[in-house]
């Protein structure tokens, strides 16, 4: 009996250790993270979040240049706040969610800057088109987890998002800001 209890305690410890490893492995805490795109129509800035995404960020504060990040965002989860517009942007002229369900980012190089800052260079792929990009990121410890903040501009036309007939009312430039929190250790 005592032996059994010892064994289940041992099992509990190893499960916890596995969970901690998994968290330290860089899985995102998705509920604490956000990715929000701001587009401009008729010069009106509209914030719209991507509700579903996943990814891993391996961050080594001692050797930031050995860090890496990989993210996958479900384009169908783009939420403008209206079912009609949400359905519109899934169409082939926009995100073409049926053919290209995910937008991805994969880092290729991390360049450390001042404490808590680094530049991530990588490849952003939306609608099957890959573009190199670089983004300045700030990292801080929040509640026992690393939180990464940054923002960048992208050209929706570079990714073939939106028919040219929209160009007069919809800016090409889209601002994206993210707050990504790793699962705590």
């Amino acid at each position, binding site marked *: 009996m005592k032996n059994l209890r010892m064994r289940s305690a041992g099992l509990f410890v190893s499960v916890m250790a596995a969970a901690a490893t998994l968290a330290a492995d860089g899985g995102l805490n998705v509920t604490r993270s956000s990715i929000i795109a701001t587009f401009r129509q*008729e010069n009106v800035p509209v914030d719209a979040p991507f509700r579903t995404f996943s990814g891993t960020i391996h961050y080594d504060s001692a050797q930031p240049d050995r860090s890496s990040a990989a993210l996958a965002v479900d384009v169908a989860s783009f939420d403008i706040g209206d079912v009609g*517009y949400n359905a519109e942007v899934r169409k082939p002229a926009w995100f073409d969610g049926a053919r290209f369900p995910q937008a991805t980012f994969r880092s290729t190089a991390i360049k450390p800057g001042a404490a808590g800052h680094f530049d991530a260079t990588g490849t952003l792929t939306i609608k099957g088109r890959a573009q190199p990009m670089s983004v300045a990121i700030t990292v801080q410890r929040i509640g026992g987890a690393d939180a990464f903040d940054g923002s960048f501009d992208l050209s929706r036309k570079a990714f073939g998002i939106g028919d040219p007939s929209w160009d007069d009312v919809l800016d090409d430039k889209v601002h994206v800001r993210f707050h990504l929190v790793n699962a705590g250790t």
Partner: protein
Amino acid sequence: MPDRYTRTAVALHWTVMALVITALCMGWFMTDLAISPLKLRVYSWHKWIGVTVLGLSAVRALWRLSHAPPAPVPMAAWQRLSAHAIHGLLYLMLLVQPLTGWIYSNAAGFPVVYLKLIPLPNLVAKDKALAARFEDLHSAGGTILAIAIGLHALAALKHHFIDRDDTLRRMLRWRAT
């Protein structure tokens, strides 16, 4: 009491009339438009007109308070009372209707950028439930405003063509000052 309206009062009256009727017509057809660049444009124009009406109506209300309107044309007491009631309702709706539209837009997550140039403050934060409530309020307000304008116009025409009095004519000519 003067027997005419001031030129400013007359100009404001007809300018606001033209803007409000345009905005009402847009409001009725733009909601049924399929999603398109035109739809976004019409929504923007509608909002800009609304903001203009709000500003002009505020000026108008202040002008009305500081400049005596002409003495009422002789008419039955019930007519004068209902004319006053409709005028009050019109002034109220000219201020309230743009505001419910502004709040509806903000609650739906769309700031208002006047004439594509001037970002106006958000009156409320994005809130789906609030947006639905103000969508209903704004829509009902449009109907109330249209009915009030209709009654007001019918009464003016009745005074002009049937009573043959000065009611409409004095809103078409103005005093010098």
